[in-house]
């Protein structure tokens, strides 16, 4: 059905306006991070990058980055492996409790993350585990594994079951089918799930709040600073965290592109 030209134009404008509003706060943070004065006020009169230097040379910031990185890396690894098998059970194979399993896997996404974090804190206390960044990994997994499962499941829905059957008919073992057929077919889903897992863990605050114990992640440290009063380091470290995410995304997008180009020059 055709939509009127005027309505179409209005919808495009509306879409652009929403995008602008979504990124406006990041613009403010960006400006604040290069403002020279200690007490921020717009319009910014003098710009300086000294806070970036300070943030990059700070030992505290380096520690926070390392903690956040290791946490995100572990979360990515575990959630993708569990999500890969979970997605096959979710979308690909017919088994008795599949519908129930789908609903169970989805449930944690609907729970407020702060409450999940608190529940985990009390659970760790009850079984005698001292909270640290390792327990935060578990907390992130509760929320992120369902998401990786869903992302890989979307891919699993769209692949043809006949391919696996053919492999088996030709004499492949279950393990060979998994490795030679299923894994390559799901690869794009696995990559985007991994990317989501890493970035969601890297930026997560509510799950870390109660579960990191004496350790602290980057978003947690930022929150503590924001609540306790303004510091010029907050926008700077915030922007650095955004740049780190953007860089990772660029690399993730560039790699398949470069591989494709390498392949096409090889065959040429």
């Amino acid at each position, binding site marked *: 059905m055709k939509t009127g030209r005027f309505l179409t134009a209005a919808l495009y404008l509306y879409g652009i306006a929403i995008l602008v509003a979504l990124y406006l706060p990041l613009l403010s943070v960006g400006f604040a991070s290069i403002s020279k004065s200690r007490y921020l006020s717009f319009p910014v009169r003098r710009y300086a990058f000294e806070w970036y230097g300070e943030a990059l040379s700070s030992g505290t910031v380096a520690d926070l980055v390392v903690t956040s990185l290791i946490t995100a890396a572990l979360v990515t690894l575990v959630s993708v492996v569990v999500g890969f098998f979970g997605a096959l059970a979710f979308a690909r194979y017919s088994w008795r409790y599949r519908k129930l399993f789908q609903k169970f896997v989805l449930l944690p996404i609907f729970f407020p993350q702060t409450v999940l974090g608190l529940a985990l804190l009390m659970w760790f206390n009850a079984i005698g585990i001292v909270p640290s960044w390792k327990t935060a990994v578990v907390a992130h997994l509760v929320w992120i594994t369902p998401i990786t499962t869903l992302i890989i499941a979307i891919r699993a829905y769209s692949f043809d*079951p006949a391919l696996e059957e053919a492999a088996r008919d030709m004499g492949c073992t279950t393990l060979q089918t998994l490795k030679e057929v299923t894994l390559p077919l799901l690869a794009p889903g696995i990559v985007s799930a991994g990317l989501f897992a890493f970035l969601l863990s890297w930026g997560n605050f509510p799950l870390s709040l109660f579960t990191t114990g004496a350790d602290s992640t980057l978003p947690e440290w930022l*929150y503590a600073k924001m609540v306790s009063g303004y510091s010029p380091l907050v926008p700077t470290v915030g922007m650095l965290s955004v740049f780190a995410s953007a860089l990772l995304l660029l690399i993730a997008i560039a790699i398949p592109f470069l591989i494709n180009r390498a392949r096409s020059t090889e065959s040429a």
Partner: protein
Amino acid sequence: MDALQRRLGTLYAVPAVALLVLSFVAPLLVVAAFSTMPQGVFSLLHLPDFSAYGTLVTQGYWQSLLWSLFMAFAATVILFVISWPLAFGMAKVFKRFTLVLTIGVVLTLFVSENIRLFGWVLTLMKGGLIDGYLRAWFGGGLEGALYNVPVIIFGLVYVYLPFMLFPLAQGIAMVPDDARQAARDLGASRWQILTEIDLPLSAPGIVVGSLFTFVLATGALAEAKLLGGSAVIVMAAEVETAFTYGQDWPLGSALSMTLIAIVAVLAIFTIARIDLDSIMGRRG
């Protein structure tokens, strides 16, 4: 083959189920158990007396609960209204712009919500981006935009937009164009097509999106803290205070249990009614 499918399906579900039983179900049971303990204890080795629930009622915590529920409800309604046209555009009108919008919205999810909310503080505060430039260019400024209830709702709307937008767009995409065309040929007005074709047929998307936003906004913390100052105290903040300053785990657990109960009832009720296979597009 079917026997093999059944075996593989069951086997492959084991890691995810084990993970969730150990780190989702068990912790929730511990919270439930703690909420029945006498106040001020830090272990489960006491006789339950349910006194924390009494405190919850008598100490006025229901006010925080009502604020959280009200603001979450307001945010859900507002989000539905502002997301609908955009979701409609993404599903039916835009071509390549849908991809641009999708990527643009997803990217914001990767930036910590703290940083984005803090950005709004810098944008809206006195001497902030909007106020400062208005003052510099026109003389007049933007006073008192922060630290009130509407700005908290605004924060919720901002943070949870993707959780409404994407399910809605998915729901609208499920409305067959033929049905809309037929309604129009039979003389239905724009309004009639909206209320009698679009809204009912995209109901799964509306339900999932509304559930997501309402539930997540009910348990939200950072919006009220950063944008709202201390205008109102939300439920999640009461929970945090009970655990940290209050050192009262049973009270914190009882407060959490009220949130968990609301969420669980809504989520289980809704999830039980939707068919995930049809939404996500299963073949064969």
